[in-house]
């Protein structure tokens, strides 16, 4: 992991499912993004995804975890015991999936954590393609991107209330009445 030591604001670099995740602090996000683009050749922003972890870990998960090897007796997660997923540092994660279109093609996930009310610095100056991606995450997840030149809703109407991909957004639906019920 020594390759990433020089990354500005690096909190943690991890490898899981053959994917590298680089967690950086919110303040140095743009520095880290610029560093990755210029020094490590990640010239292509493939995707930008925000995840809402509200309620994460409140529901214990048990039972049949499917793995290639079936149940592993040394791993409690596969045995049917109650297990709670690992807690997350803040409510929202913003993931930047980067790709290097170069002689050395590879991918990396740049990740930063943000709480309700905090703004994420924009990376539109680093990768122009972030324009619509950031607008989409603002629209659906309510993440504010500081410095974005045109931060307005993109998929929903301009006068829409709330941000539907948040976990506390009501999903609606019609209540169903069953026979014998009042």
């Amino acid at each position, binding site marked *: 992991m020594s390759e990433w030591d020089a990354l500005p604001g690096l909190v943690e670099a991890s490898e899981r499912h053959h994917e590298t995740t680089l967690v950086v602090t919110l303040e140095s996000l743009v520095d880290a993004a610029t560093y990755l683009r210029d020094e490590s050749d990640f010239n292509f922003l493939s*995707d930008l995804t925000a995840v809402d972890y509200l309620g994460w870990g409140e529901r214990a998960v048990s039972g049949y975890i499917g*793995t*290639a090897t079936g149940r592993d007796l040394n791993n409690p997660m596969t045995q049917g015991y109650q297990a709670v*997923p690992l807690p997350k540092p803040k409510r929202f994660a913003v993931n930047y999936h980067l790709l290097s279109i170069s002689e050395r093609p590879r*991918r990396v996930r740049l990740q930063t954590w943000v709480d309700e009310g905090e703004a994420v610095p924009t990376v539109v100056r680093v990768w122009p393609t972030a324009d619509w991606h950031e607008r989409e995450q603002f629209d659906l997840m309510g993440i504010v991107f500081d410095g974005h030149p*045109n931060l307005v809703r993109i998929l929903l109407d301009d006068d829409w209330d709330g941000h539907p991909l948040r976990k506390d957004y009501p*999903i609606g639906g019609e209540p169903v009445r069953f026979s014998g019920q009042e």
Partner: protein
Amino acid sequence: MTATAPTRSRAPIYEGTRIPYPIPTVLTTPPSVLATGDVMTVNFGPNHPSTHGVLRLVVDLYGEDVTGLAAVVGYLHTGFEKNMEQKTWWKAIPYAPRMDYVSYQANEYVFVGAVEKLLEIDVPPKAVWMRTLLLELNRIHSHLVWLGTSALELGAISMFWYAFRERETILDLFELVAGYRMHTRYFQVGGLADDVPRGFYPEARSFCDGMPKAIDEYETLLTRNKIWLERTEGLGLLSADDAIALGQSGPVLRASGVDWDTRKVEPYLAYHQVDFSVPVFPEGDVYARYRVHMAEMRESVRIVEQCLERLERMEGEPWIADDRKVVLPPRHELHTSMESLIHHFKIVTEGFRVPEGEVYFAIESPRGELGCYVCSDGGPKPWRVKFRAPSFVALQATATCMTDALIADMIAVVGSLDTVMGEVDR
């Protein structure tokens, strides 16, 4: 506006960058042009037959010159990603193909593939080869729809009938395999939903025999066609650097001279075992995008043939992984085995569980880099699903491509970006 007038014959690809500033996706009319008082703002779409669905373009016109342009999307937003969070992993699969309703199997595979990556489940070879075959048939299908509609919009009506003739054959093949012509839902986590039906291989073979001849016919109609050349050459220019900066992928990127194909660079499925080449054209205009599409169809036919050769020797092999925690047990076991019945019941009612974690899985869809981000808390439902839609990103290049263009070229340029609005708005 820059000094260079739009030339009508093969404008060379530009130097440097043309991405508008400060908003990379909006072309703004310069104040000097605005001051003339002759600028007219026209609303194009969202309901217009040549916008490939419900795309709205707000265009500033100075005479016939496009001086300002902004693309407005979202008219087809249905909240697929939110819906998928409410379903079990198993029941979320049918949502994926409904996003890009022209290359549905690519979307279906990218979701299933992402879940498989999280599960670390092994897929049997027969399913791998069959998936490769169907994805390539789907690529031809998608390119045919693109070719037919784009040519139709530029006045070449006959192209539409030619392209849809072969498209019909492909849909028949899908129907033979899955029972559905579109949105087949044939890919299951762990493999395929059912075995390849008898009679599929000969039918697919006869399609492969006829397809190169059909592509020759299309090329006879268009490639050297004077009107087609006039309408496509030197238009919608996008340099390689701008294409990468704007996140363009697939045929648009390869028509700008970037030799990039996820199938070659990060092979998934059986792509490392088949022989095919990646067509690249350096001109960066609408005509180059057309040439890439045509050449890719020929390559896809070659891949399908190689898949058929392998599959024909795999008679009787399993088509889905034998993992009872994830995959439904074979139907016949339900009558005799209590254990199988329980597994069946658990998977259908509760859904299978996927280990905690997050993955990003990207494939080369007919439209380019199609990615799927999947996050699980270890439960039976996805915590978050996100699709990286190549069409959504492609539309961001509209402003750059339309720099110094005429209103009549807008149809050709927007069409050449090959977008499907269902995937843009999701």
